């Protein structure tokens, strides 16, 4: 069982436009790709990928709704409830890895590069809509010899999507595993690319979540629970799902277009 612990925010770092990282002490082991249920008392509780898993743990938040607004408003000393870690995390494979991150999807991926711990063995592609939304660029450069940037509007790095950049990159270089996180449409494109190039991939999904403990079924995609069977899925698991890239569930459990 995983306790609900209250933690004190030790630092708040601005990462990009409307995006910040909160660090806190949490004496639990967290694997790359796992997530925490983070409670802003009196507001809401939401799943957040761990963006820092060594030393002080961290989450990286982008303001999109009430819960994230409360998290972004946190200061050093703020109290947050934390339960978890939950989920399976990435299975880090031997050999050379490629990380493909879209927007705040980078948050769950940099712990993969931390874990690999070898600048020669992991390359990182960072994408966002626009330059101020590119995050963790310096951190990526510290972890990898080869870091490339893309923005949809061309305001920094290559102009275009991170998947278009990945397609070009895969013409030149072979990888043993691709790790990706970002909007589901992007992940769908990553999967298609990986199948074309015959490279295995692991993709981290996001769904509306309630219990996070594998019980309530709020976060299912087809019959799989994103909280317990995921959030990271092997490419071949996702290929056969009828809902991947198309449907998600709303708070009532009804099917809605992604």
């Amino acid at each position, binding site marked *: *069982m*995983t*306790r*609900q612990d*209250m933690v004190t925010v030790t630092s708040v770092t601005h990462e990009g436009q409307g995006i910040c990282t909160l660090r806190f002490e949490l004496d639990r082991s967290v694997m790359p790709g796992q997530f925490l*249920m983070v*409670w802003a*008392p*009196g507001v*809401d*509780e*939401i799943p957040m990928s761990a963006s820092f898993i060594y030393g002080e743990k961290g989450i990286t938040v982008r303001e999109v709704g009430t*819960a994230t607004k409360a998290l972004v408003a946190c200061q050093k000393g703020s*109290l947050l*409830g934390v*339960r978890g870690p939950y989920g399976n995390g990435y299975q880090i494979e031997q050999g050379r890895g490629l990380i493909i991150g879209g927007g705040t999807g980078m948050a769950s991926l940099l712990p993969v590069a931390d874990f690999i711990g070898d600048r020669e063995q992991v390359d990182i592609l960072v994408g966002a809509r626009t330059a101020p939304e590119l995050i963790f660029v310096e951190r990526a450069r510290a972890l990898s010899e080869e870091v490339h940037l893309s923005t949809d509007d061309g305001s920094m790095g290559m102009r275009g999507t991170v998947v278009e950049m990945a397609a070009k990159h895969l013409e030149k270089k072979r990888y043993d595993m691709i790790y990706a996180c970002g909007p589901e449409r992007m992940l769908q494109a990553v999967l298609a690319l990986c199948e074309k190039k015959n490279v295995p991939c692991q993709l981290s999904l996001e769904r509306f*979540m*309630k*219990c*996070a*403990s*594998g*019980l*309530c*079924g*709020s976060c*299912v995609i*087809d*019959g*799989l*629970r994103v909280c*317990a069977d995921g959030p990271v899925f092997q490419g071949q698991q996702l290929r056969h799902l009828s809902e991947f890239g198309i449907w998600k*569930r*709303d*708070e*009532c*459990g*009804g*099917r809605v277009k992604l």
Partner: protein
Amino acid sequence: MNPLSTRVASLELANPTMLASGMMGETGASLVAIAEAGAGAVVTKSVGLEPRKGYENPTLVELEGGYLNAMGLPNPGIDAYREEMLVARGAKVPIIGSVFATTPEDYALLAWKMQDYGAAAVELNLSCPHAKGLGMEIGVDPTAVRRIVREVKQTVKIPVLAKLTPNTHRLAEVGKAVEEAGGDGIVAINTLRAMVISVEAKRPILSNKVGGLSGPAVRSIGVRCVYELYETVEIPIIGVGGVESWRDAVEYMMAGATAVQIGSAIGRKGLSVFQVIVQGLQEYLEREGLENIGDIVGVAHD
């Protein structure tokens, strides 16, 4: 003959384990996944007339002895649920449709739709401990329960099960009311009203403040309730509350349960819990030299 085959009302189960309502039952595909994991039958999430969001998070607190939850009956509404039932029917086990409402007429309408969608039985949620005006607020009143069960029985042909709350001193009376109204079985127990307060945040953790406690912490209460009901009614009882192992299942059955439902253990033990319990029951029967699991039902009574 399959030593674990179990009959509940007119339902034929390959083994006496069932998925409890509220777990994983939001989508048809997850009900199929649970059936494939070894459950003898599956119960859907409780569905009402209209779509319902449920409560804001936090909706769950993990505790040493189980879970405290107040999901708030989220569901897409009975009309949208048709699609899930179509998928769920791909499971090779009976699907039991769980419904909640405020009036006998609405319960009957929901039950009729579940029957129409192919449910093998309907389970009336008369016991949700944390939804205002719903569930438990009805389920503690024998007269109200009698009316609801009678109305549903007059409307559908499939078996009607009533899920009861332990949050009352009138459990036996309510159970009797189900039987007198023609109910085909009783499911006991739903969760117990409970609260957890964060000492640091100085407030209850659940957004709804009060929730329902489930898991091993409530097992001995469930066993006592089943035992008492068994002395009061003749209709089958399905035991639920903290079943995590074959021993727990046997305990409920000795108290008088014909079958057991499993919920919290899915989170605590994983989906394999069904198969592990079924295997354990099989070995138990072999050790005891019993022909059918039904032989132990109610043996704890004088």
